[in-house]
């Protein structure tokens, strides 16, 4: 298992997340897609750190996990807020603002 394998895995996961963001109509689904992308990057970071033997990459990963969590929490909060005022969680119905 070389670095390339990890990078490929990460890239694949990233693309799956990307696909999820674009195809999902449900806002929660879109959020999950973004989470997947973030975690793919974490794999990348850990792999780079592991293969170059440097610590910062690992530390970095810990930070990004924290940030991702905060982001997810905020995302869910916004979705709940949105559901309260709009009674929908479908991304396609949110087009009051356009043009």
């Amino acid at each position, binding site marked *: 298992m070389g670095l390339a394998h990890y990078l490929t895995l990460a890239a694949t996961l990233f693309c799956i997340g990307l696909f999820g963001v*674009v195809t999902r*109509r449900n806002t929660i689904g*879109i959020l999950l897609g973004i989470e997947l992308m973030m975690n793919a990057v974490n794999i990348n970071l850990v792999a780079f750190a592991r293969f170059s033997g440097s610590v910062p990459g690992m530390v970095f990963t810990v930070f990004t996990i924290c940030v991702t969590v905060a982001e997810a929490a905020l995302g869910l909060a916004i979705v709940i807020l949105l559901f309260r005022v709009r009674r929908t969680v479908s*991304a396609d119905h*949110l*087009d*009051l603002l*356009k043009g």
Partner: protein
Amino acid sequence: MVALIPLFPFVGFLVNATCGRRLPKVVSGGLASLAMVAAFAVSALSVWQLAALPVDARAIEQTVYTWIASGDLVLGLTFRVDPLSAVMILVITGIGSLIHIYSTAYMHDEPDSEFARYFSYLNLFAAFMLVLVLGASFVVMFVGWEGVGLCSYLLIGFWFKKKSASDAGKKAFVVNRIGDYAFILGMLLLFTRFGTLDFQGVASAVAGLPPEATFGALSLATLLLFIGATGKSAQIPLYTWLPDAMEGPTPVSALIHAATMVTAGVYMIGRNAVLFSHTPETMMVVAVVGAATALMAGTIGIVQNDIKRVLAYSTVSQLGLMFLAMGVGAFGAGIFHLYTHAFFKALLFLGSGAVIHALHGEQDIRNMGGLKAGLPITYWTFLIGSLAIAGVPGLAGFFSKDEILFETFADGHTVLWVVGALTSLLTATYMFRLVFLTFHGSASAKATADTHDLAWNAGLPSHAHSHGHGAGSHLHDAPPAMAIALVVLALGSVLAGYVGVPHALGGHNQLATWLEPAFEAEHTASATAEVVAPAAEPAGGLQASGEASEESETGEARLELTLMGVSSAIAFLGIGIAAFIWLKRRPSTSSGQVEIADRMAQRFPGLHRLLLNKYYVDEVYDAAVVQPIRIISEEGLWRGFDVRVIDGAVNGAASIVDGGAWMLRRLQTGSVRTYAGSVIFGVTMILGYYLWR
């Protein structure tokens, strides 16, 4: 002290803009006029100082402070009075003062707040115009250039409740933006080429270069500047806004759209005489465009029926003559004509304003007639103005127009001379058509004129009170404030030409001599003086060349006298034609006699229609630019969306902009997934470029 000149009107603007609404009319109008008079006094004083200086050092420069000093550009807010700007500031502040005074009477029926708004715009305009002519560099000039455009546009649309006024404002705005765009680009190009934007700096950098015989960067720069000038000075192809600009109050037409702002393009070329002289190709373009505009506008002017539109086309035509002069290198002649034109055209506009004022908004000359008796002051001053613009010997227009024609001929441009002469003929004809139809004949002629298709109430909404518009019933001639302005300008129209009496008539053409140093680069002028000094008299080239070839001098004088005779004859011929067609056989009440003009219109229906419709230029623009927008907009995008002035400008100017906006707005669907798609598109493009380039 020079900085005080624009400062006075600016202070006037500040006062009227901030608390003018609470001031009575006497105070706000008086203050505005006073500011202009003060500016005139300071201008006169500076010019007097300037004249006291030796000829080759005639420039008063004042750097208020260093405006921009960073990188490779050091630029002061520098004002500079030299012979050229001296002429300009005198014209602007002098005629400006008169028009301010005139306006206090003309606008008197407006409510206080509107009155103050009017004067604040007018003062602001004057301030910017003075910055434009006093600026010692392109950037400072540009400040004024943008500013006067803004004010002009605000004043055209002053009566914004009238749709035609706001439409005209739009048009002026769009056309001027096109010109400004070219102007900025020209400026940037010059900056990259010479690393300076100071007029003197550019001139002395250019002076060392050989003339650019083929098209190059310099030609491009001057051409771009010239396009900017065509926008501001209403030349082909950007002239269509000026006749429409007559929707503004008449004093505004006199000040901005006849005497000062529209001459900015001419001034700009004069200011950069050295630069333009080095690009003969551009000069040729300038001359041809000028001549073509002069002729075309003249032919249109002869069939217009709105008193102000006739004058507007006449302005376009006269500006064309000035550009012709600039183009053949007769910078002095062009500025001379600018200066005399300012007098008589302002006079004519103010006179027409007095007529409109007396007739409560009537502007159609077919509904006028016989006003001579009722409006004596207006009539006589208007007549003087018409004689002056027609080029009758002895009046201001004669000397300046003649000098342009002579220089054109002497420079070898026979065709352009013919065009210029024809334009003079047309000028005399349409001006006297105006005089005869308006002031002569019988007042009742209007009864037969059933053609009310022109909106006669387009002038002054506030005058449209119950008086009706009957000519001759109870006319009141210009009130004192208006009369003063008319009389002073009439005097000017007679006398202004005497500063430029040509040598051929035994004069000294002081104006040309005075202006000469302004058209040369400062350093080269002194350099050549050093070289020439041992050989000839240090006094300058004029005298030296005069002595060197006295024989050719007399030959030239004879030619000039001949041409002068020709143009005088042309002037009288034009007046004669006008008298023959429109004076002698004016139809009386119900004689059924067909007027000569009508007969001619019948004989050449196509030509008449072509002229009446202004060569269909507006229609072509309409079809090519405005209609596509309208079609797009009727799709529903703009429905229920009526912004009075600029909205349509946006429509009219740039179909591409709107079409693009329309398409791109549809991309902004509101769906977050589309937006994510756009991001992915961007990522793909960038990564694709990097990985597969």
